[in-house]
């Protein structure tokens, strides 16, 4: 069962969207790779439900490992970053895009989004132009990125 926290208004019931075709003998048939939009919703839902992270390093690694797990499970495409242009898999932004913008806040820029990670493990994903917040997760101390 895929997670659905219900906290994000644009996340529909993922368990309803992800229907695995089943053969008469009970085995699952080969299925098409779900679209990126669906996989991203799964990613955000899993991050929301993940236990709070306790540090920048843990949150950053948690983001990468959660994305890798979603892509491994839902696409089956080998994790081979050098194939990013052609393989259709989503890969995390490279670490050299990290910028420390405040003593307690590091920002990772992606093409259309900012990912803010607090020293306390808090995480926020935000659209660059609209400021729409897609994920706002507190660290283990209960504080969100901008509350430290």
């Amino acid at each position, binding site marked *: 069962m895929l997670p659905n926290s219900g906290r994000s208004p644009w996340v529909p019931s993922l368990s309803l969207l992800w229907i695995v075709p089943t053969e008469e003998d009970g085995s699952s048939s080969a299925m098409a790779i779900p679209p990126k939009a669906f996989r991203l919703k799964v990613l955000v839902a899993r991050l929301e439900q993940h236990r709070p992270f306790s540090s920048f390093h843990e949150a950053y690694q948690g983001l990468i490992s959660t994305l890798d797990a979603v892509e491994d499970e839902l696409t089956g495409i080998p994790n081979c970053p050098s194939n990013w242009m052609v393989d259709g898999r989503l890969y*995390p932004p*490279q670490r050299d895009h990290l910028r420390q913008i405040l003593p307690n806040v590091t920002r990772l820029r*992606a*093409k259309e989004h900012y990912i803010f990670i607090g020293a306390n493990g808090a995480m926020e*994903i935000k659209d660059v*132009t609209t400021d*729409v917040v897609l994920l706002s997760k507190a660290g283990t101390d209960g504080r969100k990125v901008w509350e430290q």
Partner: protein
Amino acid sequence: MNDIGTLYRALQQEIPGADLKLDGPLVEGKPNWLDVFYLDKWVVVEWRPSQGFGVSLNQVKKEDPLEGLFAGPDFIFADWAEAKDQILSLLHAETQPEPRRVAHG
């Protein structure tokens, strides 16, 4: 001046009405982002010092705010002048081109 700075200056001269935003200070050896807003269009440029420029036309208004998260660039260029030509082409195009991923240079 590094290549992203050169591209910034060239775009300033070619389209003075555009709103250009570098994502942070130019630091030697560090990648950077350049957002180019012109009329109702938004082109984002990712620059990596040893690899060149990733150029994408982004949706300013999206139905799904998650769209584009962790997506790579649509075009890649080794040379700033080629990247500039593509940016101008995207900004001046009447219709939105089909996204495609092509490496140049």
